[in-house]
């Protein structure tokens, strides 16, 4: 066995995670410094008073746009921001992005990928999520609706049922994977992957008990898909506790009713025969009835609550991951005592603040975006290695297929082209949707494969290289990037427009002269030279990660 040493961190920034043993919760104290400052204090503590540098304006601008709008800024916006001399321009930008109509769309995409893991698409689900983010619906309310799985008054919440209905379908030749549904509830809302505790206590994670898995399963045991018609849910009667035994000890019988991991078991009421339903099933109308005791409703009431520690830390960790490119706990669904957070205080603080702010995600995302931790540069000082979980150097994030599609569109299109939600006529919307679908096919992970880290593929590289779509976007047309650049005679001006349009920053001297040299070499075909230059940046690592 090789010693597991302290991994080549420069002593200046050496972070000894084990030293942070005490979990102090600041709680919510009136008059306390803003959340962002408390976070920065925790993160910067190991830097011994020499916090590493912040991102420059261009790096920050691109990052904030991608995170909060889901697309890179246009060249004009980049120019304007870089020229702006006001000291609070970063704060103003964050507030503008959070108030913009693209923010709910971006959040819908983030949470749809997070909660559905590319299992399928559903217009009603998309609409439900987007409207929820438009109204800044608190996370606990959102989760309550999703877990309740009711269509609401006049079907207003119909879209929220997709979380259940999609998972209760057969897929391929496989039977309905209800275990998968129970597992996903644990993973996505509690940050606990209890899969391995389905048949026995987890072999390696002492916190994950079979009883936890079985108790969670009991909440959805009676739920199934209503056959026929539009997908909707049926909840039957749960009349007895769920019996189980470990596959290792088949003779020891156990039982549990619905119960959250580590929580109180919900007593199953004894109801007289014939009196179990609030609304009895109607075989003629083919409705399943509404049981008086609904374990699913119990789940929806009990899980998303501020006193549920797992619920709080899960969303705190996922929002942190979204903004910082890495969870405080990784993997995101492996919260347990033997897998401590990199910064226990930060996770506790964020969870408590979220609860104190009634799970207002926008406020918390704003605080995170304003923190120095978020605004760190992703460049590493020469010769140094800074572990990702120190958050002292910004972590690169993968771009989702949606972010990439919009950003390539933005970069290659006419000025201001894709920054808007397309509403300017049917044709543009159709081509927009088609482009998105092509990018999804090339860049999205397969179903059930969480999109957490940057994982490029040969398929995607071939798509960027040879697809009709990307090639066509580089053809000169109506003031698009190639058109604009081809008309510029000055290499410096061309370099500036290209770099601002694609990479949202100004070129370095080295880059400008390399570009000029290439243009000189390709005097035979200026348009082609411009296309090659533009493509080289679109396919570059700098473009396809959020750094």
């Amino acid at each position, binding site marked *: 066995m090789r010693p597991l040493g302290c991994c080549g961190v420069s002593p200046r920034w050496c972070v000894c995670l084990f030293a942070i043993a005490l979990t102090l919760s600041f709680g919510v104290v009136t008059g306390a410094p803003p959340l962002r400052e408390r976070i920065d204090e925790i993160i910067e503590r190991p830097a011994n008073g020499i916090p590493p540098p912040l991102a420059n304006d261009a790096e920050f601008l691109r990052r904030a746009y991608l995170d909060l709008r889901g697309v890179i800024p246009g060249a004009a916006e980049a120019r304007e921001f870089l020229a702006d001399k006001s000291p609070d321009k970063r704060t103003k930008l964050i507030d503008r992005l959070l108030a913009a109509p693209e923010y709910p769309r971006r959040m819908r995409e983030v949470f749809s990928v997070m909660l559905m893991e590319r299992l399928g698409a559903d217009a009603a689900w998309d609409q439900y999520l987007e409207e929820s983010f438009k109204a800044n619906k608190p996370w606990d309310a959102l989760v309550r609706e999703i877990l309740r799985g009711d269509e609401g008054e006049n079907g207003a919440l119909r879209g929220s049922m997709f979380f259940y209905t999609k998972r209760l379908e057969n897929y391929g030749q496989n039977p309905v994977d209800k275990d998968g549904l129970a597992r996903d509830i644990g993973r996505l809302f509690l940050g606990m992957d209890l899969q391995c505790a389905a048949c026995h206590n987890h072999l390696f994670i002492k916190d994950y008990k079979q009883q936890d898995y079985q108790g969670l399963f009991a909440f959805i045991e009676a739920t199934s898909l209503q056959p026929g018609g539009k997908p909707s849910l049926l909840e039957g009667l749960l009349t007895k506790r769920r019996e189980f035994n470990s596959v290792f000890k088949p003779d020891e019988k156990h039982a549990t009713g619905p119960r959250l991991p580590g929580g109180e078991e919900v007593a199953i009421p004894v109801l007289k025969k014939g009196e179990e339903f609030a609304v009895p099933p109607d075989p003629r109308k083919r409705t399943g009835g509404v049981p008086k005791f609904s374990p699913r409703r119990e789940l929806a009431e009990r899980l998303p609550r501020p006193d549920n520690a797992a619920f709080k830390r899960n969303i705190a960790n996922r929002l942190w991951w979204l903004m910082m490119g890495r969870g405080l706990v990784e993997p995101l669904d492996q919260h347990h005592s033997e897998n401590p957070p990199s910064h226990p205080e930060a996770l506790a603080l964020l969870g408590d603040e979220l609860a104190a702010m009634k799970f207002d995600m926008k406020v918390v995302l704003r605080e995170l975006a304003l923190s120095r931790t978020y605004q760190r540069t992703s460049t590493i000082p020469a010769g140094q290695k800074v572990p990702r979980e120190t958050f002292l150097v910004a972590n690169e994030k993968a771009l989702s297929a949606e972010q990439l599609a919009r950003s390539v569109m933005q970069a290659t299109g006419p000025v201001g082209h894709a920054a808007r939600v397309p509403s300017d006529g049917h044709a543009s919307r159709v081509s927009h949707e088609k482009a998105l679908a092509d990018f999804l096919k090339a860049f999205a992970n397969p179903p059930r494969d969480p999109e957490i880290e940057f994982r490029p593929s040969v398929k995607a590289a071939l798509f960027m*290289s040879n697809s009709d779509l990307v090639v066509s976007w580089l053809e000169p047309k109506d003031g698009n990037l190639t058109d604009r650049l081809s008309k510029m005679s000055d290499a410096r001006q061309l370099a500036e427009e290209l770099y601002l349009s694609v990479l949202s920053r100004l070129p370095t001297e080295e880059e400008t002269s390399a570009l000029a040299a290439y243009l000189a070499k390709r005097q035979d075909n200026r348009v082609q030279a411009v296309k090659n230059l533009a493509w080289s940046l679109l396919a570059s*690592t700098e473009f396809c*990660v959020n750094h």
Partner: protein
Amino acid sequence: MHQSLCKPWEHRLSRRQLLGTAGAAAGALTVGGLGGLVQPTVADAMKRKHKQVLFIWLDGGLSQLESWDPKPNTQFGGPFRSIATSIPGVQISELMPRMATKMHQIALIRSVCTQDNSHSAGVARIQRGDPKNRGVTYPYFGSAVAKLLGPGDSGLPPYVWVKPGSGGFIHQDAGFLGAKYGSLAFGDGKPPENLLRHKAVSQRDDEERNELRAAANKRFAEKRRPEANDANSYVYDVAQALMRRQDLFDESKVPAKDWDRYGRTEFGRHLLIGRRMLEAGITFVKVNSYGWDTHGDNFNGHRSLVPKVDQAVAALIDDLIDRGLYASTLVIMMSEFGRTPRINGHVGRDHWPEAWSVMMGGCGLKAGAVVGKTNALGTFVAGDEHDIGHLFHTWFAALGIDSKQEEYDNNGQPLPIAHDDCHAIKELLA
């Protein structure tokens, strides 16, 4: 009660890994640069003569009784006869007349006894070598070989998979080695989408724009952590290499007599494509055949399936020998288990991991070796049983890899490349 039984490779992170150092944990979820060898020089030593693997996977379960270990005229023997082979005293099923003439050029083991009789778990369990459970997801054999032998100098991806149905990049095969050791699957042997250089982009422009891309990436990577750029550059490099070898997918270049020799069947075609991938220098080529799960009508099923495989594999061995590739190419043909001696009510045979056979040949193996045997009825192994772990050790040894010394380095966690309690089967090795 539970349809999704807990699978060993779902135990993703060991306690040790979770408690690892900051640096170790940091690398755990990134792409590229993962799981380096403890002794990286081995891959260099291998380069002198690049070794390759052809892995033929008969998905669903080849019946040993209708192929390598027939028991004619016994209780469970079924209707087929056995025939003599090129090795005196060794008989195989009459469904494999061509392979019978190749017996002195291949090696056979008839004492395979494995642990899993379900497909869903069994396929991965066998292809991952069923190592001791350490809470990590082991790589498939293809990913393991891609890692241990490297890509060679072809520039092509080290692990490709010719299969019926759809293709794509199957990163799950790689386990903890990281996505880049996954397989590139050619569905129905067809090239991946967008492989052809776009007609609007000339060869010169494609080269130039990729040079510009590489230069941009180099500048970016100078001041950044290497992982993202390594991974992104790698996929573009592979894409470029594949684009240069479009001829591999041009079946019009294959002489008609080759199609005839391999048989004009789906499997014959796929195996021939597989041979061309080997000729192109790809380290590990997997060729799949589906439809072997003969719970019903086992005998008609095998009468239809086995001769197709017999013809194609015999032609392949001839070709590898002709081209001087056989000595450096390990050929393996197997399933996730054998089939039950007992014949069920649907005239079928069910899953039987207790006693089955695996064929192999070529690189590092003793030609003509026939190892292990089953009892008279074919129900169980008589004598030493050999698990998939023994086979992994044997194959690694055949490829010149010391599986008792070599280890993976999974972010600081040293892991044996094959089951610790198993060992190579010496009788199979040259």
